[in-house]
């Protein structure tokens, strides 16, 4: 190739490059105007549920629309379910924010846990729900009618579904005699045998422990920590890191660590206890007498839901006692509708008590449900550390 040709090629390429960059820059610029969304101005709630649109697109935890109860819904309403299983709360938020946010016009409902729900509300990705259209809502345990993780200033952004505690699990062949206090997770006796979730919300577990172990810090709510309380919690977690074998990303990874003998003690979910016990791994689960943190899931309605009627029909359906009972036993969690109790016992004798559905309301005061931390906390001082700070601190602890 001659020198002249090379130069010609060079100029042509340069011209193209500038053109393409201008195009990209223009694209970036235009996306600016589409961002920004209002949250709660002027509630425009439906007063009745119309006819189903024939389809329902769910972002869900695996098995949250298990065919054992979803099939009946599909034949009853004609709403064909398309499900997308998510592996983590982050994945759920990312899916909801895809395609311009609000579910991108693709998704109708998301089964968000408490560490995701306020993020979705604040980001304008979900819309208010008229709970009057969900008859079973009146029967819910009071805690779950308008919990802080899905209700903001009296506006409901979804319908509570099921919940479960974060439990202390240990291998009975390795930890003798057993443990029954969260302090075990911070005990150097178990160095290299502990597994805990790799999730910034885990900071709340340490704060919950300090709430009882160090009352002088004055922690009232493990999700509302001021700078001093936060720093003390992070310091405790940095100590704990030296004892941790594995920060599990998916609960199945934590489960594998217990099964393979790499972990002897840790924080995990009841569903994993059941799975391990089914495989004859000698494990025992405890909820210490101080209580525990817990997760509670909510079906939240996407702002740009393409099938709102089917979405309402689904929220109505999964709140009924029979379906609540079925789902609880498929997944290993606790219904929010106490009328599910006899149906649970019908499917599996004694399961209502096993999943704590028959507890008095005072029991729920000992469970601190996940909610996304924000700077605006209830004490009115607005001096709390927000989720960005939690995320950064968690990277610092585990990284």
């Amino acid at each position, binding site marked *: 190739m001659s020198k002249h*040709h090379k130069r*010609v*090629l060079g*100029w*042509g*390429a340069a*011209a*193209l*490059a500038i*053109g*393409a*960059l201008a*195009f*990209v*820059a223009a*694209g*970036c610029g235009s996306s*600016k105007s589409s*961002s*920004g*969304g209002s949250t709660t101005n002027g509630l425009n709630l439906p007063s009745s549920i119309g006819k189903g649109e024939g389809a329902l697109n769910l972002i869900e935890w695996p098995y949250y629309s298990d065919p054992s109860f979803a099939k009946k819904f599909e034949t009853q309403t004609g709403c064909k379910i398309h499900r997308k299983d998510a592996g*983590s709360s*982050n*994945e759920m*938020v*990312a899916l909801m*924010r895809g395609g311009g946010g609000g579910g991108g016009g693709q998704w109708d409902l998301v089964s968000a846990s408490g560490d995701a729900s306020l*993020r979705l509300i*604040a*980001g*304008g990705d979900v819309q208010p729900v008229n709970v009057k259209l969900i008859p079973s809502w009146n029967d819910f345990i009071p805690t779950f009618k308008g919990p802080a993780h899905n209700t903001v200033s009296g506006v409901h952004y979804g319908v509570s579904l099921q919940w479960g505690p974060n439990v202390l699990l240990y291998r009975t062949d390795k930890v003798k005699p057993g443990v029954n206090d969260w302090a075990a997770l911070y005990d150097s006796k178990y160095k290299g045998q502990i597994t805990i979730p790799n999730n*910034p919300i885990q900071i709340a577990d340490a704060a919950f422990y300090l709430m009882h172990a160090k009352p002088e810090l004055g922690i009232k709510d493990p999700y509302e920590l001021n700078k001093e309380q936060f720093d003390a919690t992070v310091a405790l977690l940095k100590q704990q*890191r*030296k004892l*941790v*074998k*594995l*920060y599990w*990303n998916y609960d199945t*990874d934590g489960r*594998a*660590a217990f099964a*393979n*003998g*790499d972990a002897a003690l840790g924080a995990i979910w009841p569903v994993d206890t059941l799975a391990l016990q089914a495989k004859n791994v000698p494990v025992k689960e405890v909820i210490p007498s101080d209580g525990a943190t817990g997760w509670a899931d909510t079906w939240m309605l996407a702002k740009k839901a393409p099938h709102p009627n089917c979405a309402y029909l689904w929220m109505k359906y999964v709140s009924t006692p029979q379906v609540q009972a079925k789902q609880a036993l498929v997944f290993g969690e606790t219904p929010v509708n106490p009328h599910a109790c006899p149906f649970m016992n019908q499917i599996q004798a004694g399961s209502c008590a096993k999943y704590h559905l028959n507890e008095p309301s005072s029991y729920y005061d000992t469970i601190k449900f996940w909610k996304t931390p*924000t*700077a*605006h906390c209830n004490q009115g001082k607005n001096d709390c550390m*927000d*989720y*960005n700070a939690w*995320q*950064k601190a*968690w*990277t*610092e602890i*585990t*990284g």
Partner: protein
Amino acid sequence: MSELAQPGAPLRSARLRLSAALWRRPWLKVTLLLALPAIAFLLVYLGALVALFISAFWQVDAFTGKVVHVWTTENFHSLIHDQVYRRIALRTIGMAAAVTVTDAVLAFPLAFFMARVAPPRMRTLLFVLVLLPLWTSYLVRIYSWRLILAKNGALNWLLNGIGLPDAGLAYTNKAMWIVFSYVWLPFMILPIYASLERIPDSYLEASADLGGRGWRTFRSVILPLALPGIVAGSIFTFSLTLGDFITPLLVGGAGSSFIGNVVENFIGVNGNIPFAAAFATVPLIVMAVYLVIAKRLGAFEAL
């Protein structure tokens, strides 16, 4: 016929004028020819990089989690001044370097055997064996390593069987090092093989004629000629390790986070794409420097 030719005439003259214009302006011809592939390349490849780099200078609103389009160097500031990100970046780069060295040491003898010693039939067999792991999913191979290294796994079972204590490798950085070295090994063997195969026999004979024995011939003839192949292989092993986030997630333990994991968490947990983008420029810069050095060493002739 004439009816058909009539409308064709102006078209033909237009075509002639166009070709004349193109002939007179070669730059126009080149631009038109290359426009489509070049735009595709720029948009898909460079466009993504430019978008990444631009968003690295934005910020995220703490409350709503939405990206705020205001220019700031805050992300790079905290990247440089926060100790944890430096630690994670150094860990990632260090691991990539360790894996590259390990793979080079492991791959060289095998590649040498394949290229210069093995008879053709065995060479084919060895090729198949080297490539065989690549036919299965990368995820499957990582999971199987997790089973091997677990406390109740195959490795400890073997060690205990011959009276040795547990290796205790599960969920450690050493486990990551082993798995990475295993997973990327074929990418090192193949370029080294290619460069070794290219060495003419006459060079080795000449070295022998001049009194060079095995070690001397290896040092002065084989190694310098194989070096571009080693460097080419190292580009693969280094960049693949640098960008990975699955292996740290699955076989790493406490304190095993890579740049990729932090990027994933920042995007996933609070949608902080600007910070993730800022951190993602680190491997980009490291790789650019690495490639410049590799080019100096002649790696691109061996690819």
